[in-house]
């Protein structure tokens, strides 16, 4: 059944990558026409969202969809593969990308008028989207590297574009760490290729099993290290709270929503497919515990709202790592659900933080106050995602966390202990977010501070916030609520995704036409 080319939906698979690339090309050519850039960006991302939705429905119904590039079947050629996990994350990521783009466009229009646009923003934004799509869809280790490079190169531009020297310096931390991890990734790929002679993920699954156990462990740890840097797991997280808060609001939201989760997705994909194990992974359990606690405790010490959110982001990466560390179908599916929820809620919170900063003119919590009275809508927009992130029932965060806790408690004594840490970290998250609530929304209203950096892209301390910026943020809140409302079907999908990931055979059969025990 290795006639994957005959898959009726295979033609859809390349479009989430090629359409944003084409959009990037068109927006570069049309860099004089802001309206064209905006329309192209939104249309492309709408189309990719629709395609991702179709891919999710089809892959959930009939199993993974495979598209061999150029007609060269795997393992010789490069294959694009969409299974339940990748389609789900692709769908959620694209919706977030779309909402953040709408927000960014309206911010630009509100601050600089309709007639101006940046020559680099739209092309780079779509380029990043293409890289993210490719990372989700590729079935090939080297193409995964290429996808990361596309994504990261675009992000280097977005984080250092039109900003102050001090922020560029913070951006350089991000660039340096990312380059280092890319270098490690390339080294790991070279080692994998030297040991096995292939970079096709499905083919690797069979060949890694034949390697000496020590060698396989080293390769597995190298890939864990590489994706650990990208996913910001403790102790490799140090770059994140230093760099994300310095990015312009929408860009920070995009990065916080997508980039670390793409790293986590790559980690899940490689570890479950190439290095399967039967028992919980003690090392990763320890790392997950450290990540949850360091992130949550770090968040408590912050006065800068964006740094606080960045630490919470790190903390909640630990929740997902916990799901992977337990290494059974229920836990991995819980982690998948958590990733989908995390992408939306973190992007929403960073967008809300952008709206708050826009109104108050500062990111420092002790300089703001009383927004509940002056901007009640903003309070609602903050409260819902904050409760979701903290995991208060009946939000999506609760559903995802419950799945993780149940899986952890069923997996043995140590996972049960770490599940206790999950609860502690959730409470700390709630405390940190409640602290933001008290500082920002309660108290006497304070006057907006003047923009301390009027030359950069983002104007703050203005009361003019156009409706579409609220609407884009509210749209993400709705997505997050929809995850809670459709928790039943979604849990079923991620449940099947978890079973598939641990079983490996559906993926292997779809790509290679034969099972894993060759």
């Amino acid at each position, binding site marked *: 059944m290795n006639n994957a*080319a005959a898959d009726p939906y*295979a*033609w859809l*698979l*390349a479009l989430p990558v*090629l359409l944003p*690339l*084409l959009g*990037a*090309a*068109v*927006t*570069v*050519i*049309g*860099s*004089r026409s802001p309206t064209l850039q905006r329309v192209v960006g939104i249309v492309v991302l709408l189309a990719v969202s629709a395609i991702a939705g179709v891919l999710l429905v089809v892959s959930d119904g009939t199993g993974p969809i495979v*598209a*061999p*590039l*150029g*007609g060269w079947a795997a393992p010789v050629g490069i294959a694009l593969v969409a299974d339940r996990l990748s389609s789900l994350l692709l769908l959620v990521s694209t919706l977030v990308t779309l909402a953040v783009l709408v927000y960014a466009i309206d911010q630009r229009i*509100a*601050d*600089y*008028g309709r*007639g*101006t646009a940046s*020559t680099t923003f739209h*092309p780079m934004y779509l380029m990043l989207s293409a890289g993210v799509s490719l990372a989700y869809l590729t079935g090939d280790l080297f193409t995964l590297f290429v996808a990361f490079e596309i994504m990261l190169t675009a992000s280097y531009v977005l984080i250092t574009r*039109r900003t102050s020297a001090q922020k560029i310096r913070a951006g350089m931390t991000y660039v340096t760490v990312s380059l280092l991890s890319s270098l490690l990734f390339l080294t790991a790929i070279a080692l994998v290729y030297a040991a096995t002679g292939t970079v096709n993920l499905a083919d690797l699954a069979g060949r890694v099993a034949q390697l000496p156990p020590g060698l396989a462990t080293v390769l597995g740890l190298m890939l864990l290290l590489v994706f650990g840097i990208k996913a910001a797991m403790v102790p490799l997280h140090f770059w994140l709270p230093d760099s994300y808060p310095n990015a312009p609001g929408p860009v920070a939201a995009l990065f916080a929503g997508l980039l670390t989760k793409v790293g986590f997705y790559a980690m899940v994909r490689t570890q479950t497919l190439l290095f399967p194990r039967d028992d919980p992974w003690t090392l990763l359990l320890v790392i997950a515990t450290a990540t949850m606690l360091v992130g949550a405790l770090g968040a408590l010490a912050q006065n800068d709202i964006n740094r606080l959110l960045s630490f919470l982001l790190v903390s909640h990466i630990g929740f997902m790592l916990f799901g992977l560390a337990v290494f059974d179908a229920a836990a991995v599916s819980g982690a998948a659900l958590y990733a989908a929820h995390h992408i939306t809620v973190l992007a929403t919170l960073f967008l809300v933080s952008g709206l708050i900063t826009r109104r108050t003119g500062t990111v420092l919590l002790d300089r703001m106050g009383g927004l509940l009275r002056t901007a009640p809508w903003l309070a609602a927009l903050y409260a819902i995602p904050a409760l979701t992130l903290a995991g208060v029932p009946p939000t999506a965060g609760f559903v995802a966390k419950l799945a993780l806790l149940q899986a952890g408690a069923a997996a043995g004594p140590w996972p049960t202990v770490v599940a206790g840490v999950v609860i502690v970290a959730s409470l700390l998250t709630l405390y940190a977010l409640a602290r933001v609530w008290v500082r920002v929304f309660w108290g006497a209203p304070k006057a907006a501070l*003047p*923009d301390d950096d*009027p*030359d950069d892209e983002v*104007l703050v*301390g*203005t009361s003019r916030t156009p409706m579409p910026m609220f609407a884009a943020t509210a749209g993400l809140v709705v997505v997050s609520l929809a995850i809670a409302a459709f928790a039943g079907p979604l849990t079923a999908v991620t449940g099947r995704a978890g079973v598939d990931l641990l079983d490996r055979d559906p993926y292997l059969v779809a790509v290679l036409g034969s099972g894993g025990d060759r």
Partner: protein
Amino acid sequence: MTAAEPERVPFEEWDRPQEGWLLSGRCRDGDDRTLLLEVATRTLFPTMLVFSLYLLLVGHYSPGGGFSGGLVAGLAFVLRYTAGGDVGLGAVVTVRPPVLIGSGLTISVLTALVPLALGAPVLSSAKLEVVLPLVGSVSTQTSLLLDVGVYVLIVGVVLDLLRSLGSGIARDMRDAGERF
């Protein structure tokens, strides 16, 4: 907070090529001139462009391809810039580099997409036999178009680098009253 116009140069104009690298009777600052390099460039520039096209065309079966061809062509422009400075490029390149980059990318992506419309997997290529006058029968692949896109893209990138890191810096230095 007023919504100030962010760009110093008018938005429509800031990235239009204004420098010219064509060697002509005019020259940039007289004492910066290297006669030997300028004369050599007159010979090398067209030769390098032809060689880059050669690399582009033989790329499918021999060493070469759109990337290396584009780089050689880009180097030809770098040489021209080194010899001619930032005065008078207009006569050589009137297209804005971003347009070149975008066009190259468009050509490549469309080449990847066309097979889909014909019912083949994405990025498929087919053998192409063309009979050209004087040359005779030429065999190539449709993936040559992808290489053409890459070639244009790379030339655009090199020109963009020259504009921003080369003549852009030179202009800033001149504005600040400095010299190389």
